[in-house]
């Protein structure tokens, strides 16, 4: 299948997310694709990164050979601490998430519903070992939950759906979907188009997803 449009690369998508993060925001980047956003934060603004294992002011990966395995992120990779950074215990760290103190969290997803239900922790397949980590706390607790994902699954089915078939992480929590083909807003009224990649029209996008999408 050839299309008239080209999906955003991982880095282009990370840059698209990063450009919407306001100066001064406290942000948690989920494990996997969202971690890439840290590489594309615009210069000249100050963003504080939170890691659920007890770090605020997380910096980039250390220079090879200087890793310290007491200083790791939620994905268990070595990181650094910026001047002004702080350490704290798990209950304080999750109080930051659950108490509405984080401005934005960016998470991956299996599925997102048009009204912002999120499924990102478990496929629900028999024999699959469930693991949830901090996903439910972030999704329910951050002021804004953004999702970063491909619009279509490997089998071609849309990951933006009317109702999630995978087990839910949280109800009506996702505000925005940053996908490889488009950026969408979720609300109780359904989807609204923010932008799409060049060559992908509004109607084509609606056809791909199979749901109505309002335009600004």
């Amino acid at each position, binding site marked *: 299948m050839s299309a008239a449009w080209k999906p955003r690369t991982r880095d282009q998508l990370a840059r698209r997310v990063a450009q919407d993060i306001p100066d001064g925001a406290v942000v948690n980047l989920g494990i996997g694709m969202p971690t890439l956003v840290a590489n594309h934060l615009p210069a000249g603004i100050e963003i504080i990164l939170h890691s659920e294992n007890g770090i605020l002011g997380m910096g980039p990966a250390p220079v090879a050979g200087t890793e310290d395995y*007491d*200083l790791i992120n939620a994905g268990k990779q070595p990181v650094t601490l910026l001047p002004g950074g702080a350490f704290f*215990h798990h*209950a304080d760290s*999750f109080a930051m*998430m659950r108490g509405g103190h984080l401005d934005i969290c960016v998470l991956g997803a299996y599925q997102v519903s048009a009204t912002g239900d999120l499924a990102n922790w478990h496929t629900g397949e028999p024999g699959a*070992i469930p693991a949830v980590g901090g996903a*439910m706390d972030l999704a329910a607790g951050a002021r804004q939950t953004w999702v970063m994902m491909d619009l279509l699954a490997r089998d071609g089915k849309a990951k933006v759906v009317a109702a999630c078939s995978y087990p839910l992480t949280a109800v009506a929590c996702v505000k925005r979907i940053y996908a490889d083909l488009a950026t969408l807003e979720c609300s109780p009224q359904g989807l609204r188009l923010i932008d799409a990649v060049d060559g992908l029209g509004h109607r084509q996008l609606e056809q791909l997803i199979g749901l109505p999408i309002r335009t600004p």
Partner: protein
Amino acid sequence: MIDKIAASVAQALEGVRDGATVLVGGFGTAGIPDELIAGLLEQGATDLTVVNNNAGNGDTGLAALLKAGRVRKIICSFPRQADSQVFDGLWRSGRIELELVPQGNLAERIRAAGAGIGAFFTPTGYGTELARGKETRQIDGRGHVLETPIHGDLALIKAERGDRWGNLTYRMAARNFGPVMAMAAKRTVATVHEVVELGALDPEAVVTPGIFVHQVVRIPRVATQAGGFKAKEVAR
């Protein structure tokens, strides 16, 4: 005189009973009390309920305790890892019980136990299968789930410096579950890399006050294990 310094791991873990609930600190490579887990394996208590963020990695530490058939139930947020093969095998063959808990509920339920809180309502997990069978309530128009405390008979944690009253400081992200687990157990055993005189820890910087700690064991730094340090620091 109060002296919580134990001579050895074996001494600190004397008398742990079968059926105990054991809170084990650590997240990733940081803050895992490896020597205490090895000591528990040696000590022999069985039919344990273990509370940890994960369910063991590789073949050592918690995974070795699981492999030896000593753990009846694990309460954790993230059992599935690239190297969680020991847990995976036990779970698939029905030889271990799993209570999966969102990480924030895990931390807060442990904290609640330490703070004498009977239960609490939280939005985390509302409307998901992890809230199934639990009491719910609408508070200020938002769905909440009732969560109960997790009490430990024993907590095993890794700290950095400690004194004979049991005051503790930690190092970087190795702090993680240590402070809340120390509060929530009838008996808390902490390892430290340095035992200092009373008064040597800055009172403004004590993270876990000694009231929450029962025994402190000094462990030399090693670079080879998970939770170890880079070679430069070991030499220091």
